């Protein structure tokens, strides 16, 4: 039982934080978002140089065999600086899928490229009628010759417009909600029949709707077992959710600091508003939410890589519920306690709130994870 970080972890955390404070200020971030490119080449390069892009992969692929806790440290720092780069999409989702299910050839090809910052990828999985059911895949994959044909549409694909390559989930058998029958394919985003609609998301990221109109791919595009990708997807989405909880933790910590500071400085009726008992107790509840969320975010990070899938799923879904509740409460209170100024575009408060709210809408909302946890209990 130990809740401290190793020296290496502390070093990673500190250097990443220092870098982000220097290069990823609120103003710098705003400019990057305005550029509309969805990622910043110099930041991506720096993250590669720091070893962050290869962190989860084995040394032979240019990585550091990082644990779930290592990913947590990165994502928490990203959350605090509201980083909008495609780390989740490229490293954790696509890198994770290839790492878990890919052939040794695929791993040897893709992982070093991701680690070096030379591959931007996106996971085209969600669909219009899926909402939060992550088993739901209606996109079809049919064999054609030695290869496959993909047909369908993917929704709200994070960084789908920026990716050079897409990992696409598609079904060869079963109903759309069935857990089995799904395969994963790597598809060049420039392939004939791939049509992408890139757009901004309200929290400053980019996403895309992607149509696959009879896209022909060859046999080597298949990642993992044919019609057997369900458990890989479940595992990688669990890790992604643990990472999102860590990112949320970073944002929540920032909101806590900002709001507490505001209570101490903002004067009304001749005194700091933090002297009003109602606001004091509200802020105490913010703290309690934050500490409870931190406990389960740590827990999820630790067990995100566990081989015991029930343990992993429970830890992740518990965290998504607890962090999600904290995100709702703290976001709403951060704005309320700031008053009008908390509603403005120019303060960071609202941007943390937007990101936290969207994390709750990504890869299963609170209710979904509540029901998933209950089903595992």
């Amino acid at each position, binding site marked *: 039982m130990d809740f401290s970080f190793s020296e290496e972890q502390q070093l990673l955390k500190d250097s990443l934080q220092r870098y982000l404070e220097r290069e990823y200020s609120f103003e710098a971030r705003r400019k990057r978002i305005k550029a509309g490119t969805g990622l910043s080449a110099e930041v991506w390069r720096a993250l590669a140089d720091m070893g962050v892009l290869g962190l989860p992969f084995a040394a032979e692929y240019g990585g550091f065999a990082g644990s779930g806790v290592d990913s947590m440290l990165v994502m928490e720092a990203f959350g605090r600086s509201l980083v909008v780069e495609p780390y989740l999409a490229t490293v954790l989702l696509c890198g994770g899928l290839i790492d878990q299910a890919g052939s040794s050839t695929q791993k040897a090809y893709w992982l070093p490229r991701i680690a070096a910052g030379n591959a931007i990828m996106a996971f085209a999985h969600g669909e219009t*009628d899926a909402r939060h*059911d992550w088993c739901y895949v209606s996109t079809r994959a049919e064999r054609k010759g030695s290869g496959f044909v993909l047909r369908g549409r993917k*929704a*709200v694909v994070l960084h789908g417009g920026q990716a050079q390559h897409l990992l696409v989930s598609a079904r060869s058998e079963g*109903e759309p*909600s069935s857990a089995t029958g799904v395969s994963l394919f790597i598809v060049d985003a420039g392939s004939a029949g791939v049509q992408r609609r890139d757009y901004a998301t*309200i929290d400053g990221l980019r996403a895309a709707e992607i149509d696959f109109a009879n896209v022909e791919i060859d046999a080597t595009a298949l990642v993992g077992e044919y019609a057997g990708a369900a458990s890989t997807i479940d595992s990688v989405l669990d890790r992604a959710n643990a990472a999102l909880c860590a990112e949320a933790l970073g944002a929540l910590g920032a909101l806590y600091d900002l709001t507490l500071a505001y209570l101490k400085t903002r004067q009304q*009726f001749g005194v700091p508003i933090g002297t009003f008992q109602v606001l004091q107790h509200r802020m105490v509840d913010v703290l309690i939410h934050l500490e409870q969320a931190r406990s389960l975010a740590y827990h999820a990070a630790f067990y995100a890589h566990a081989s015991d899938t029930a343990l992993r799923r429970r830890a992740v879904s518990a965290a998504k519920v607890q962090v999600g509740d904290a995100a709702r409460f703290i976001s709403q209170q951060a704005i309320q306690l700031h*008053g*009008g100024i908390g509603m403005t575009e120019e303060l960071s408060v609202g941007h943390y709130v937007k990101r936290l709210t969207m994390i709750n809408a990504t890869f299963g909302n609170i209710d979904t994870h509540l029901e998933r946890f209950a089903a595992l209990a």
Partner: protein
Amino acid sequence: MDFAFTLEEAAFREEVRAFVRSHLPVDISRKVNEHKHLDKDDFVRWQKILYRKGWMAPGWPVKFGGTGWTPVQRYLFEEECAVAGAPSVISFGVNMVGPVIIAFGTPAQQQHFLPRILSSEDWWCQGYSEPGSGSDLASLRTRAVRDGDHYIVNGQKTWTTLAQHADMIFCLVRTSSEGKRQEGISFLLIDMRTPGVSVRPIITLDGAHEVNEVWFDDARVPIGNLVGEEGKGWTYAKFLLSHERSGIAQVARWKRELAFLKRMAGEIQSGGKPLMADALFSAKVTRVEIELLALEITDLRVLASDREGRAPGPEASILKIKGTELQQAITELMMEAVGPYALPFLPEALHADWDGTPVGPAFAAPLAARYFNYRKTSIYGGSNEIQRNIIAQRILGL
């Protein structure tokens, strides 16, 4: 006790319904129902229709152009307008400064300003809040110094809603720094075209331009624009706050929104079944629906006690708290309903004349922004914390 409306009231409702049905422009109600952006012209067009019918100012005395309706009639009028998807009448003129001018203005002010409010010739905005004066309004610092026949006004107002459209602003200004803070405050009407008055937009977290800063830099305001007595502005401001309570909860409008939510959640597929079939989501919607039904009756009970001549009082604070809580809950459930389609942010899709293809279902585009926008409701008009202070003091006697 009778929850039914009288025959007269029912007939009145039919009259209003028929009028609204035949006169409300379809392009406007479509924007309202689909949560699209409304231009200044949309508001003004509808207000002019009401003006021509004589229904622009139901709350005013008949001699100034009011309707002479009972509180229940006014309630029915608002309900029918809301159900049909009419835009809300912009409050600042007709519901806020209008009653103050009627109660405390000079005949000259009444003759000049009231007809222009009725005809929507003047668009008003409200100059109360300042950067240092939020909940503690009495600490305001914008100064008006007498100089012959004018006041010279200097200072800054903020959170001024729709000031970018405004012709006039009613302001609380400090005319004296002696005595109690409240006693140095006066109520001044200022033409937005006055040299020295400037407006700077504030963009809110949802990307909208709805509020503004209004700056006064040696703006010369004729003394004829002072309402009532110098130093009595605080009294008029309190009168204004307690006066306009009818419709504060906006129940009818939010019943329409709730119906929209339920239709939406019936259409949305959630992994193979309609979202409304999800027990947890349905329970949240149902709880809001029940609370809203309760609030509707609470609102009517306050109206009824009004009619019986009892003082309306701080019950308005209950309506404000509960009303805004429910509005926030409904906007949150709408955003939750569309799942990951809360993320796409296409501000252009909020304009009715946009002819692009929506991302996901067409109703999804405004919902996340709207959720964020509605966080304001528990802050403005006296934050919900201030409302609780008022209730504790004036109803509970604590």
